[in-house]
């Protein structure tokens, strides 16, 4: 560390004003502040002394994501080996815990590296061009993007979606803190609509599922989408439905633990709950949004339960089970709570979260083309958030004006 410090100190004059490389000062600044606590002090006005800044906040979110990350790696390997076993090629007992984990690790790390290298390069380019500091907004986005991807996504597509998300989702609005949409979801939406064959169907969620015949790597949501208009007495339908019962592949306990196919980070409810606990304990994530979104999703699922016809298993699925599959909870904890794109007022947060939950379940049940309704729902509510805030503030102003009249 001392060596790094000395090197940075030595080359600093080149980057300062009138140095040969002064145009690249934001890049230098980013490295210096990333590695060391900067000795900058405020130049004027009052200021608050606090150890929490953007960088610390971001690091906490990264820590909260680690359980999902590690579990996702393990699950990637486990699902792959399970698939080999079900195709009769190998037995699942041939592999131990670390085999699963390291298989997933080597498959997943390229996604993380591509996401960070491409995303940070774009951020650096913009910072140098606009002569502002590189800020840490991308640290979390860069981790979220690969976690929402299927494991086999081609790297160039990932890179393209990262560029799209950073440039169109963030930099055109003015950079970190100014974006309307959540950049990580923008990336996922881009790749979802641009290359649907790589982002949906039953052959993308488990590594190289398309090369092995006769196995299904369908997500629980995809499976459910095929159970919307069914004959309850049909043989194949009954076998499909049994997969959601307590000893099936998509049972509640499997969904809760996360040993089902899906995007890398979304499967395990336990890992997400650990992340949520870290976010709530440190006060980084908003409790109001998480709770109201959970209640929103739950109440929508209950309403569907009440009106569900016999021929629609998607609607009659148990509400808790409904929320445990797909990326509902992952979106709730890590995407909807994004402090930039969510609603800002306390009341607004509750309305925003509730509608996120309601829309997520509504879209996933009624539109089989988008089984992943959470993504679309949160993006939609991101757009609506300023409107919600506006009306909350207006209502407050009205209320206080009334009080003023009474006093007169």
């Amino acid at each position: 560390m001392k060596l790094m410090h000395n090197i940075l100190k030595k080359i600093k004059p080149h980057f300062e004003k009138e140095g040969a490389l002064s145009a690249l000062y934001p890049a230098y600044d980013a490295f210096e502040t990333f590695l060391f606590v900067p000795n900058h002090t405020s130049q004027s006005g009052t200021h608050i002394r606090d150890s929490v800044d953007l960088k610390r906040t971001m690091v906490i979110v990264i820590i909260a994501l680690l359980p999902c990350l590690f579990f996702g790696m393990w699950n990637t390997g486990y699902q792959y080996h399970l698939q080999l076993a079900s195709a009769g090629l190998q037995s699942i007992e041939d592999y131990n815990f670390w085999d699963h984990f390291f298989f997933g690790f080597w498959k997943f790390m390229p996604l993380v590296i591509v996401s960070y290298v491409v995303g940070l390069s774009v951020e650096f380019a913009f910072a140098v061009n606009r002569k502002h500091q590189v800020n840490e907004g991308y640290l979390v986005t860069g981790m979220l993007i690969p976690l929402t991807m299927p494991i086999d996504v081609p790297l160039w597509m990932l890179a393209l979606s990262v560029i799209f998300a950073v440039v169109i989702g963030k930099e055109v609005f003015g950079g970190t803190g100014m974006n309307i949409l959540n950049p990580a979801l923008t990336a996922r939406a881009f790749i979802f609509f641009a290359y649907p064959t790589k982002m949906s169907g039953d052959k993308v969620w488990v590594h190289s599922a398309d090369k092995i015949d006769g196995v299904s790597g369908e997500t629980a949501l995809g499976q459910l989408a095929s159970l919307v208009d069914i004959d309850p007495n049909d043989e194949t339908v009954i076998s499909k439905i049994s997969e959601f019962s307590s000893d099936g592949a998509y049972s509640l306990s499997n969904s809760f633990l996360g040993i089902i196919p899906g995007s890398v980070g979304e499967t395990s409810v336990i890992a997400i709950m650990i992340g949520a606990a870290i976010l709530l304990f440190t006060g980084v994530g908003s409790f109001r949004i998480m709770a109201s979104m959970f209640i929103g999703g739950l109440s929508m699922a209950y309403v569907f339960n009440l009106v569900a016809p016999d021929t629609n298993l998607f609607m009659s699925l148990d509400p808790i089970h409904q929320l445990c599959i797909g990326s509902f909870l992952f979106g709730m904890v890590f995407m909807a709570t994004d402090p930039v794109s969510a609603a800002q007022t306390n009341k607004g947060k509750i309305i925003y979260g509730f509608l996120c939950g309601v829309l997520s379940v509504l879209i996933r049940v009624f539109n089989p083309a988008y089984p992943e309704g959470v993504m679309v729902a949160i993006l939609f509510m991101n757009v609506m958030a300023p409107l919600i805030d506006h009306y909350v503030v207006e209502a407050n102003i009205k209320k206080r004006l009334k009080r003023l009249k009474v006093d007169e």
Partner: protein
Amino acid sequence: MKSFFNKQHQKLIADPMGDQNPITIQVLGICSALAITTQLENALVMTLAVIFVMTSASSIISILRNHIPNRIRIIVQLLVVASLVALVDQILKAFLPDASEQLSVFIGLIITNCIIMGRLEAFAMGNKLWDSFLDALGNAFGYGWILVAVAFVRELFGSGKLMGYEVPGFSYLYELGYMNNNLMILPPMALIVVGLIIWMQRSRNNDLIEEN
């Protein structure tokens, strides 16, 4: 005596192509720019249709400008444009049935293209024939080159073709794992591509950026 094609005339043509572009600066005629730019061929047909309608309409209105009663001028303008559009529609149906079918209502909707009515109202009603003709030509080309540029990007990346033909190098790319970008064919991408053109134009010319 004024020359036949002086500096002012040049400006009439050049301005709408660049810093007074009807789409990127005045943000008019966006609807058709978004709707028909999935294929280059459609964009070219549309451009030609608009060039014809605009130049003819501007010339006719310019000739009639001293005889049109002020209170019914919009109706007269609309009548002229509508008959010209009907003409274009019939010609396309006769000679380019495929393109006509793909463009479907959008040929008819040239009538409501804000650029045409805008130029008639703002320019042709108060200027001489030759000036009005050049102004219409410039604006139609300004509209057209944006359309063609957007359609070029969208068709190339969206379906890997140009003018309906496969692009030669793409077969190698497909083997390497390249795929066509479906989003390019969807409407949002047209908005984004137009937005990127606006961004480029504004970063080249700082005068275009409004002060807050």
